[in-house]
C-alpha cells in the first residue's frame, strides 16, 4: 500500500527556441537584429532543464505526476516542444506569437509563465519550475528570478545539483556562485535555474520521437492569457562587435617572448 499523504509533484519546464549555439551569427544589413534564417534548436540550458525533470521522474517514479513544457515563440517553436516531448516530457503548451513580433522581454515571459501556472491550479498546480539560467541569444539570465519574484516563490539559480524531497516538500540545491558553491534548501514551490554542470542531456531516440508526435500540445495566444508581451526597452540598433586585428603567428618561443617583453610583460617572480 502506498502512503497516500505524499503529494504528487507537477513540474513545469519553460523552454526557448534559439539560434543553434554552434552557428556563427551575422548582424543583418539594416542593423535591426541578427540573421535568423539559420539553424535553430532548443536553448542548451533548457535541454538541461528538461533532462533534469526527466531524471527526477526516473528517480522519484510515481511521485512525479506530470512534466509539462511550455514555450513562447513563433509557430516554428512547436518543433522545440516536440524535441522536449521526445526527451520524455508529457505534454506541451505553446504560447504562439507572430513570426514578426519583437522578442519578448524576460519580464513579459515571467508574467506569461505566471498566468500559465495560475491556469494549472485547477489541474493540481505547479510545484517545481526548472528552467535554463539564461538563453544564449539575449544572454539576459533574468526570467527564472523574475518568475520567482512575481509568484513570491523560492528561487535557486545556477543549480549544479538538485535533490527533491517530496515528503518534506523541499528541494536542496547546490548553486554555482562566484568563487565556489553554495547549498540552499527551498520550500516548494520553487523556481530552479540550471547551470551547465547539472547534467548531460540525452538524445531523443527514434521511437521516442515517433511517440512524441502523439503527445498533446495546447496552443494559446498571449491575449488569451491577458498578457502583453510588447517589450518596454527599445532596441535601437544591433551592430557587429569591434573586430580584432589578431591572427599574427610567430615561429618560435623566442619571438613569442620578445613580443611579450615588447608589450611590457615581464616576470613578477624571480
Amino acid at each position, binding site marked *: 500500500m502506498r502512503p497516500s499523504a505524499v503529494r504528487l509533484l507537477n513540474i513545469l519546464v519553460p523552454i526557448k527556441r534559439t539560434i543553434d549555439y*554552434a552557428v556563427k551569427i551575422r548582424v543583418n544589413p539594416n542593423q535591426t537584429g541578427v540573421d535568423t534564417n539559420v539553424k535553430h534548436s532548443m536553448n542548451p540550458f533548457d535541454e538541461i532543464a528538461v533532462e533534469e525533470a526527466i531524471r527526477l521522474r526516473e528517480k522519484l517514479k510515481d511521485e512525479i505526476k506530470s512534466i509539462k513544457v511550455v514555450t513562447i515563440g513563433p509557430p516554428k517553436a512547436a518543433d522545440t516542444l516536440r524535441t522536449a516531448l521526445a526527451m520524455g516530457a508529457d505534454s506541451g503548451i505553446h504560447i504562439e506569437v507572430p513570426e514578426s513580433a519583437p522578442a519578448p522581454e524576460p519580464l513579459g515571459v515571467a508574467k506569461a509563465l505566471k498566468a500559465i501556472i495560475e491556469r494549472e491550479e485547477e489541474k493540481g498546480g505547479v510545484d517545481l519550475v526548472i528552467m535554463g539560467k539564461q538563453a544564449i541569444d539575449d544572454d539576459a539570465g533574468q526570467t527564472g528570478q523574475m518568475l520567482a519574484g512575481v509568484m513570491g516563490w523560492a*528561487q535557486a539559480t545556477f543549480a549544479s545539483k538538485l535533490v527533491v524531497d517530496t515528503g518534506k516538500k523541499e528541494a536542496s540545491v547546490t548553486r554555482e556562485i562566484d568563487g*565556489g558553491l553554495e547549498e540552499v534548501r527551498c520550500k516548494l514551490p520553487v523556481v530552479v535555474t540550471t547551470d551547465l554542470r547539472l547534467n548531460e542531456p540525452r538524445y531523443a531516440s527514434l521511437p521516442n520521437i515517433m511517440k512524441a508526435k502523439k503527445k498533446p500540445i495546447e496552443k494559446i495566444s498571449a491575449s488569451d492569457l491577458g498578457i502583453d508581451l510588447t517589450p518596454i526597452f527599445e532596441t535601437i540598433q544591433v551592430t557587429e562587435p569591434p573586430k580584432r586585428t589578431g591572427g599574427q603567428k610567430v615561429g618560435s618561443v623566442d619571438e613569442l617572448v620578445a613580443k611579450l617583453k615588447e608589450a611590457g610583460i615581464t616576470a613578477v617572480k624571480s
Partner: protein
Amino acid sequence: MISSSFIFTLRSGRSILLGKAFVRTYASAPSPHALVYLEHRGGQLDSGSLSALTAATQLGGPVTGLVVGSQEEVPKVVEKAKLLKGLTTLLHSSSPSYAQLLPEIISPLFRKLLTSSPYTHVVSAHSSSAKSLLPRVAAQLDVPALSDVTSVEHDGSTNTTTFTRPIYAGNAVATVRAPSSLSLKFFTVRATAFDAAPEDSSASVEMKAVDPVDTSSPTEHVSTSLTKSSRPELSTAPRVVSGGRALKNAETFEKTIYPLADLLGAAVGASRAAVDAGYCDNSLQVGQTGKVVAPELYMAIGISGAIQHLAGMKDSKLIVAVNKASAAYISAMVMPLKLGPLQDGDAPIFQVADVGLVADLYETVPQIIEKMSQ
C-alpha cells in the same frame, strides 16, 4: 545652465562666431539618481561594484550606495565605501539574517527602498549574487531589467537612458533605450567595461542606516564552499593564464599552467572543456557561461577557442595563444559533425590572438617560463 558656442567655418577658411546658445535646464526636470548595490566579501568591497559605481556616476546625477550584510561586516565595509569617489550618500543595513544574501531575504529591503523613492536607476555588478537578486526585485516592482551592460548614457532632456550590451555570446552588440515612461531602470554592469571607482579621501558622503526588513523566507542557506587561492581574482586580474582541453588531466594542468601564472603574477582561467573534464574548479571557467575577463594579457594555452570561450576573453588587450592541435578538438568535443576537417593551427583562437604560436604546449610552456625569467 549649460552654454555653448557655435562656430561655422566659411569656405574661405575664416571662422565666424554665431553667438551663444543657451540650453535651459528646469528644476522640475527629473534628474537621474542612481542606487548602487555595493557587494562585499570578507570586509572588502567587490571590485565589480566599483565598476558599477563608475557606471552610475556616468548617468550624471547623485549616486547613493547601498551596503547590506551582517552586523560584523557592514561597519568594516562602510568605512571603505565612504571613501569612494562619486558617492553622494551611503545607505547601510545590517541584520543577522543578512549574513547570507539570499534574494528571498533581501528583496523586501530593496522593495522598501525603491517604492516611492527618489531613485531612477538601480545599478549593480553582473555578479552571481546580484544576477540572482535584481531581476527578482525588478519583477516585483513590475519593471524590466538589463543585464551586463557595457555603456550607459543618460539624456536629461528626454529623460531616456541608452545602453549597449553584448548579445549572442558577444557576437553582436545591442543598443537599447529605456523610455522616459520607465520610472526605474535596473541594470547590471559588465565590470571589465568600466574602470573601478577610485578612492577620494576628501569625499564627504552622507551616511544613513536603514532598518532591515523582517521577512519569512522559503529558502534557507545551508553551506558555502569557496575555492581558496593565493592568486589574483580571475575577473579582475590584470593578467590571466588559461588552460584548455589539451592539458590532458588535472595534474598536467597544474604542472603546466600554475608555474607560468605564478611567474607572471597572473590569475588562472580555463575553458569549459578543461572544467568539464575535471582539470580544475568550475569557478575558473572563462566564457559565456563563466567569467568574462578583459585583462592586459590573456594567455590561452591549449585552448582552441570555441565561440563560447571567446565571448569571455576577446576584449583582452593582448591575447597570446599557444596551441598545437587545432579545431580537431572543437569538432570532436564541442560541435560534432558541424565543422569540416581543419589544418593544425586553424584553431579559431588564432583569429583573435595578437601573438599565436603553433607548437606543442608541453615543450613550449617550460621554454617560455625559462626565457621570461631570464
